[in-house]
């Protein structure tokens, strides 16, 4: 007989079996009665000899069916009935799970997009980056990720000599004013070597890649658009390849459009890609290190081989060019590491934190299950007595818990979708541009797989313990109700353990978020070294055709500064070659007069070109000497420098800097420059970074065509943007105000602040959620135990226990759990907070104040949670309590 036929004829088969067994019993009874037994005795004897009728029937049926699936279906049917019968329980459980799973899935979507998803290049694991490190930089591990530049001649030598790479390519950030697509507007761009896209393995979606001959200064001017800019700025024009645009003062033909999926985080905001069109110094000077280099390992080469080969090339370059390369070290970092390096620790800490939330949610639901399981003991005893095997009971409870988990998972997925978009929306565009992979954070197969695993994990976690417990209890106990008065027992002990774990987990989270809050406060309270209030910053780029020489730029600067200063609400205008606090900027090698150095081993420090009034407008304190002055530091005056305190401390070791002389070593034509002033340190590299030694030169003697202005305002800095733009247009309608931001905005968007504030808020919310869940757990357990001890409490009160004794009794129970939880939590936190070391600033991972204050707060909240049931216990009416029994 085939299976299918069996399946359809089974109803009849089952009926046959029942009828047959019935007949068997009747026949037996009849025979026994015939032998002289009473009917009643005969019936029970017949059953005794037959054994368990239900179990026999079930076993008989099991022979026929695909029992696993059928049991499952019946478990599900029964479970659904039970869950619908207790909507309150089900809703609380589902919501708790949904919160836990939703938060985890949302964070996982982001973690996946950032850390797990392969980069959208061909064989991305073979892509590496190269950087040259100077002796002062090597050592600090994270510097190799911050620093990323090489000199062009060195790059050419690597390309020529290094066989371990299939290709090496360089790029550099750039910005243009774009004409020919609506209003003239500043756009971000990048210059690359012509093999840049082919090294990544990316082909334009329209048109072609760069070709040889386009990367020389005199070559044809061409550009490739990013997909986004093609759509936004050119309306997705299908004939875009025939169009010519104007970038600054150059006419450029568009030769291609990049695919929509293309991203390159290090220049994430670049809309227009052009071939490198550098000349002069940048091409020839080996000591000018400005170009980040990426590379693709050759098919048969390993990273180790490549690094070894690079080391030998580096050694030979150092021998050949001691002045430039003597102290240079070449470091290779995988492209992925460089791209996600900064967000990786943040994400991993968040992922860990949210994992704790899920564990606490599980513990809470498990608690609910245990309480409910206690209420269902009778049901299970009856089912067991009727012949349900232990396996069936366990699978029944697991089916229920998995169904709850699945419902929580579905709701959680909705929460996660919403949460993920919130997570991404909270990232400012300027930062999102450099983490383009985060835009990709949404539900995909990997996220769904994670969700499924989380659902099964939670379902099994909170379903299994009660299931095992219930089925263990069943054998020894009879159908009678357990005695009401006892508060002990395995079940309560397990629930106590769960509450202890919840308290411990939430304490860890709270301590983590406490440390984050302290770090954030430390960063925000750090004195940047200047007055950041009422300050507007923006940039202006002077194209070389209209402003070919330094005097042209100086003339523009003078006129623009005068116009700006005359605006109402403007208190001062100054300029710098770098926008403060952005971490950008150039550095230079120098020697101090009277401190001989080995060739190539000169010191190197930051260099900034500032307007004469920069220090006074920024309110950077003058520590010694004088500021730059119009007359003493004019274009033709002797060359002077101002240094900051960090510089004086680092290189003069306590000697008086004023009057000391230094010389730059990049050119033999350089003369000694005298130090005329010392100013306070500014947190130029970022609010969480140490003060860096910095040299200042007067703008009049070291002029740039890209000028960053800072405007001190009387009122709101944002309100002068319009007038500043109008003033600029009045001087030259071709010029554009680039990236006007208030200093407050710059601070808020700087990685040092944002990469702290963001996880601080998140971990804070996780910790709050954890605390609430843990307190619900504690409250629930204490209330339950009070209700179980009503009789005991009644007797105690009847025997003369005072209200405060009862209070002490109940609170004592809560306190025991809380103290245990706090002890375990503190111990765990000692280890766990070490993992978030890299996110902390100005606070130790073991900060005793945070540890203690968080523990005290948690203890206080726990007391409140226990007080409610304690008050109820106090009001126990002894008469009623005793009658209740």
């Amino acid at each position, binding site marked *: 007989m085939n299976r299918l036929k069996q399946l359809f004829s089974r109803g009849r088969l089952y009926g046959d079996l029942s009828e047959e067994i019935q007949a*068997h019993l009747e026949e*037996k009874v009849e025979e026994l009665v015939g032998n002289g037994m009473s009917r009643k005795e005969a019936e029970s004897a017949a059953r005794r000899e*037959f054994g368990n009728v239900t179990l026999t029937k079930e076993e008989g049926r099991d022979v026929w069916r695909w029992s696993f699936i059928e049991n499952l279906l019946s478990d599900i049917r029964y479970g659904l009935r039970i869950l619908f019968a207790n909507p309150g329980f089900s809703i609380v459980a589902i919501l708790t799970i949904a919160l836990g799973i939703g938060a985890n899935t949302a964070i996982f979507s982001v973690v996946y997009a950032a850390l797990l998803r392969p980069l959208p290049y061909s064989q991305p694991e073979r892509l590496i980056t190269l950087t040259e490190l100077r002796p002062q930089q090597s050592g600090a591990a994270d510097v190799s990720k911050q620093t990323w530049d090489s000199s062009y001649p060195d790059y050419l030598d690597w390309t020529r000599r290094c066989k371990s790479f299939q290709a090496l390519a360089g790029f550099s950030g750039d910005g243009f004013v774009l004409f020919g697509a609506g209003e003239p507007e500043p756009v971000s761009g990048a210059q690359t070597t012509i093999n840049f896209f082919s090294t990544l393995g990316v082909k334009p979606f329209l048109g072609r890649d760069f070709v040889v001959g386009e990367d020389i200064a005199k070559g044809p001017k061409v550009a490739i658009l990013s997909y986004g800019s093609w759509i936004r700025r050119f309306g997705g024009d299908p004939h875009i390849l025939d169009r010519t645009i104007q970038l600054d003062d150059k006419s450029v033909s568009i030769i291609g459009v990049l695919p929509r999926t293309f991203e390159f985080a290090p220049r994430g905001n670049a809309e227009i890609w052009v071939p490198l069109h550098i000349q002069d110094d940048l091409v020839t000077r080996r000591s000018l290190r400005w170009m980040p280099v990426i590379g693709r390992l050759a098919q048969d080469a390993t990273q180790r081989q490549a690094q070894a080969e690079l080391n030998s090339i580096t050694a030979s370059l150092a021998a050949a060019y001691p002045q430039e390369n003597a102290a240079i070290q070449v470091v290779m970092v995988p492209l992925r590491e460089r791209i996600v390096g900064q967000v990786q620790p943040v994400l991993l800490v968040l992922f860990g934190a949210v994992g704790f939330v899920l564990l606490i949610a599980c513990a809470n639901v498990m608690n609910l299950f245990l309480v409910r399981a206690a209420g269902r003991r009778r049901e299970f005893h009856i089912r067991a007595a009727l012949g349900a095997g232990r396996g069936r009971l366990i699978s029944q409870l697991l089916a229920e818990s998995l169904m709850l988990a699945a419902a929580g998972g579905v709701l959680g997925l909705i929460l996660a979708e919403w949460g993920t978009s919130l997570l991404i929306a909270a990232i400012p565009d300027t930062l999102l541009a450099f983490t383009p992979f985060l835009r990709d954070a949404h539900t995909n197969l990997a996220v769904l797989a994670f969700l499924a695993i989380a659902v099964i994990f939670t379902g099994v976690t909170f379903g299994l313990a009660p299931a095992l417990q219930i089925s263990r209890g069943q054998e020894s106990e009879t159908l009678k109700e357990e005695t009401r008065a006892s508060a002990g027992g395995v079940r309560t002990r397990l629930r106590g353990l769960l509450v202890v774990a919840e308290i411990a987990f939430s304490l860890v989270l709270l301590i983590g978020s406490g440390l984050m809050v302290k770090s954030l406060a430390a960063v925000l309270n750090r004195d940047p070294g200047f007055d950041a209030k009422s300050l507007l910053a923006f940039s202006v780029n002077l194209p070389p055709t209209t402003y070919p020489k330094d005097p042209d730029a100086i003339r523009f600067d003078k006129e623009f500064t005068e116009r700006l200063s005359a605006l109402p609400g403007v208190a001062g205008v100054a300029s710098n070659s770098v926008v403060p606090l952005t971490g950008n900027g150039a550095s230079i090698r120098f020697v101090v007069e009277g401190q001989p150095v080995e060739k190539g081993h000169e010191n190197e420090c930051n260099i900034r070109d500032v307007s004469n009034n920069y220090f006074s407008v920024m309110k950077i304190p003058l520590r010694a000497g004088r500021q730059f002055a119009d007359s003493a530091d004019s274009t033709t005056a002797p060359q002077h420098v101002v240094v900051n305190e960090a510089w004086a401390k680092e290189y003069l070791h306590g000697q008086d800097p004023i009057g000391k002389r230094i010389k730059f070593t990049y050119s033999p034509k350089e003369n000694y420059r005298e130090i005329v002033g010392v100013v306070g340190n500014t947190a130029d590299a970022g609010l969480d970074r140490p003060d860096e030694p910095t040299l200042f030169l007067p703008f009049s003697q070291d002029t740039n065509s890209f000028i960053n202005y800072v405007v001190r305002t009387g009122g709101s800095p944002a309100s002068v943007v319009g007038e500043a733009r109008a003033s600029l247009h009045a001087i030259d309608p071709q010029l554009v105000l680039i990236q006007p931001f208030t200093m407050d905005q710059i601070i808020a968007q700087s990685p040092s602040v944002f990469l702290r504030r963001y996880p601080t808020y998140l971990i804070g919310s996780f910790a709050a959620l954890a605390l609430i869940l843990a307190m619900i757990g504690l409250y629930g357990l204490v209330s339950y135990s009070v209700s179980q001890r009503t009789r005991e409490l009644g007797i105690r009160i009847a025997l003369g226990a005072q209200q405060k004794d009862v209070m002490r009794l109940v609170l004592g129970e809560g306190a025991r759990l809380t103290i245990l939880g706090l002890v375990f939590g503190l111990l765990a936190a000692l280890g766990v907070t070490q993992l978030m070391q890299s996110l902390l600033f100005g606070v130790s991972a073991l900060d005793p104040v945070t540890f203690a204050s968080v523990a005290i707060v948690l203890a206080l909240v726990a007391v409140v949670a226990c007080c409610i049931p304690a008050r109820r216990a106090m009001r126990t009416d002894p008469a009623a309590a005793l009658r209740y029994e």
Partner: protein
Amino acid sequence: MRDNEQRDLFPGALEMMILRTLKRQPLHGYALAQRIKRTSNDLLQIEEGSLYPALQRLLKEELVKAEWGVSSTNRRVRIYKVTAAGAKHLEREVSRFERMLEGITRVLARGES
């Protein structure tokens, strides 16, 4: 415990005894139970109920077949009969069992001397 006693029968023993009994004469469930008990001189305390799952297994494997009939006490009962496949199966099982028994006996005899 009864449960354990029943488990002491090796797997397939019950089926073998059922087949042997039915081969002699087609029987319905109750009669089969009584027959096995009596034949074993009540040495085997088989739970009567356990016959039924075993019969269901044999039915499923098509080693026996069942037809509704009337018992001596005038009840509608299912009468079980060994099929050709069942007879062959029984032969195989019995010879296997005898070999096993012989083996066990030898080992036990050796142990005594």
